[in-house]
């Protein structure tokens, strides 16, 4: 049984870490950002239920968007709350993943 991981991006030159890909590292302006797998454990910092989506997400609502803080490193990330949001609240343990499009998703820790 392995603890789940989520892919972030880390600069091989300066160690700067981002939750999104960038061509150029904002830490050192080098071009050495590489995928890195980090523990996917996080804590839900906030959430909202989007009832009036933007046109790019038309037909998908209502859906929940959350902000979680990674247990390792303490960085905030935003993402769609996947699966059962029932029972999730500020302070809930969550697990981060990426969907097929590479977007971060947030789900209750231990949920399948």
């Amino acid at each position, binding site marked *: 049984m392995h603890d789940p991981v989520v892919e972030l991006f880390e600069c091989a030159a300066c160690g700067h870490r981002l*939750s999104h890909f960038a061509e150029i590292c904002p830490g050192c302006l080098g071009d050495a950002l590489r995928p890195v797998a980090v523990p996917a454990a996080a804590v839900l910092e906030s959430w909202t239920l*989007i009832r*009036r989506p*933007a046109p790019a997400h038309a037909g998908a609502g209502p*859906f929940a968007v959350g902000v979680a803080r990674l247990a390792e490193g303490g960085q905030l990330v935003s993402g769609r709350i996947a699966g059962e949001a029932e029972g999730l609240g500020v302070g809930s343990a969550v697990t981060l993943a990426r969907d097929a*499009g590479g*977007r971060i998703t947030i789900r209750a820790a231990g949920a399948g």
Partner: protein
Amino acid sequence: MRVSVAGIGSTRFGRHEGATPQALAIAAARDAILDSGIDRGEIGALYLGNFVSGVLTGQEVLAGLVADGLNVQGIPATKVEGACASGGIAFRHAVMAVASGQVRVALAVGVECMTGADTTRVTGALNCAMDNTTDGAAGLTYPGLFGLVWQAHAARHGTGRDDVSAVVVKNKRNGLRNPLASMGATLTVDEVSAARPIADPIRLFDCCGISDGAAAVVVTAADRLSGHPGPRIDILAAAQSSGPARIAGLRDLLSFPATVRAARAAYAQAGLGPGDIDLVELHDCFSVAEIVDSEDLGLVPPGAGGGWAREGRTDIGGTIPINASGGLLAKGHPVGATGLGQIHEVVRQLRGVHPNPVPGAAIGMAHNLGGTGIACTVTILGRADA
């Protein structure tokens, strides 16, 4: 060089059926020029704040169109864009043009036309101000962003529905006395709490309305105004900052670093502190934004914004009157015009001619915040005779 406000103009904020952005901007600019008493031939530069006129109306080159409509062609006419802070940014550029000695007189004008589009199109246009590879891709909207901010504020500071509703009730009430605001209303806390949910816990009355409008300010060197009637209003600070481009760049959801930076710079420029500010027009795009902004500006202690609103300490006559104009909640938010509309309101207060006056006001602040906190301006104005 000391720079002063020479003249102000504004259309009503609300619905202007069929109006083009250039027509509204020209009307507001004409009023500002007439108010200044300065010949338009003396204007050496024009800065125009606008956010999404290309997306929503199909019309760009607004700065040149306005220069043409005012018959001040030949001067540099520049459009600036910083999402909801576009108007404040235009103002700061006009101030810098005069302060640098490049021109004697500069015109800042802001405009947006939004009511011709339906809510879905407007939501999509507003999302242009988000990083659409991260927050936007997650499905976030602006009501959603402030839903997130609210839940975090509630978890940390216990800010509840009634605290946030107090902001709405106050601003809607203030707007009733302001002819430039068309969304003033007498609301109860219960009515605000029962309104249609938009992005939990944000409900309908927590959101500023979709509006059209324009506002303009003429600025000039203070010595150019000797002999003019009425109190001279000086620009004590015109600060602008940038901030993280996405939520992942924030330390937490309770503070926008761009506001903190711009406020710090503005207080330093003016040699003043939060206790010197007699009134503020701040960026209440959503009810809870007023609470967070008031804390970021140092006007209210961290975490106390909700309590201060509920206790009436942000009313006219309170510790720090916030949005006596009705703010964005009662005026609406014609995005590119908002920052200049706020300065227009502060100038009327300091001149002593505001329809909803803060008695004895000598120093006022305007705060204009763009996007997810990616851009901000903070302006401090003061009566020269105070």
